[in-house]
């Protein structure tokens, strides 16, 4: 058993009735403005992502530099200490 609701219609739509709804120019303008809007959003998203990537790289670089600056602990051993015991 179908979920279709079968209806009877005496007459089909006339060509004129259908032509009334035809509007390629309107559709074309809508499509191009949608596309522009879509590509605008895409551009904004790309800029945000690129900025985030740059910030992340800068933060990572700064961190690495700070790690390098930590002085390496060295024992102040006197090279002549061994002679002192003598």
């Amino acid at each position, binding site marked *: 058993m179908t979920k279709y609701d079968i*209806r*009877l219609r005496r007459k089909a739509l006339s060509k004129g009735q*259908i032509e009334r709804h035809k509007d*390629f120019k309107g559709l074309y303008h809508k499509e191009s403005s949608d596309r522009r809007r879509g590509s605008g959003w895409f551009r904004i998203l790309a800029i945000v992502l690129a900025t985030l990537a740059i910030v992340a790289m800068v933060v990572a670089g700064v961190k690495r530099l700070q790690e390098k600056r930590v002085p390496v602990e060295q024992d102040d051993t006197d090279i002549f200490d061994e002679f002192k015991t003598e």
Partner: protein
Amino acid sequence: MDTNTDRNDVEDEEAMIALAKKDLQHFEPIYNRYYESIFRYVFRKTDDEDVAADLTSKVFMNAMNAIHKFEYRGVPFGAWLYRIAANEANKYFRESKRQLLALEDHKVRMVMNCGNLEEADAEQKQKVLAELIRELDDEEIQILELKFFENKNFKEIAFILEKKESAVKMKMYRSLNKLKERYEKMNKLGDD
């Protein structure tokens, strides 16, 4: 478009699509060629002129957005539009869960003749067919609709419904037989 699209038509269409892929302003001849048939197809499913106009616009909008993906694979561009239209109609009906099929006089005659279902009165024909079709499943109705109301060939129907051609053929003959059996049963009950 008619099923018997000849080679020249296909070549013309291919050229039109190639141009439209470069610049969508050239989509207009394709739009003009298919607008009426897609509108009628959607209208038959919605039975509402304004809804049909909206859905038809969506179909062409989607087609324009995705035209770069279209490639000729043995079925005309129209079949691709029908596939988009079927998907749009399904989306529209997803909430209401009940699809429409409006039967027009001259289309009914074609199904009745093909199924050898003779009925003298045109109005009676419509009523009988509506009664019989109600008993079929959704896919069988879709196939009959595309075959008899939209004049599509099996290859195109298979493409539109995303099925195998052999499966479509089998289902179509089975549903015509079903219609015939039910029609005979109905007549027998009427005689008794």
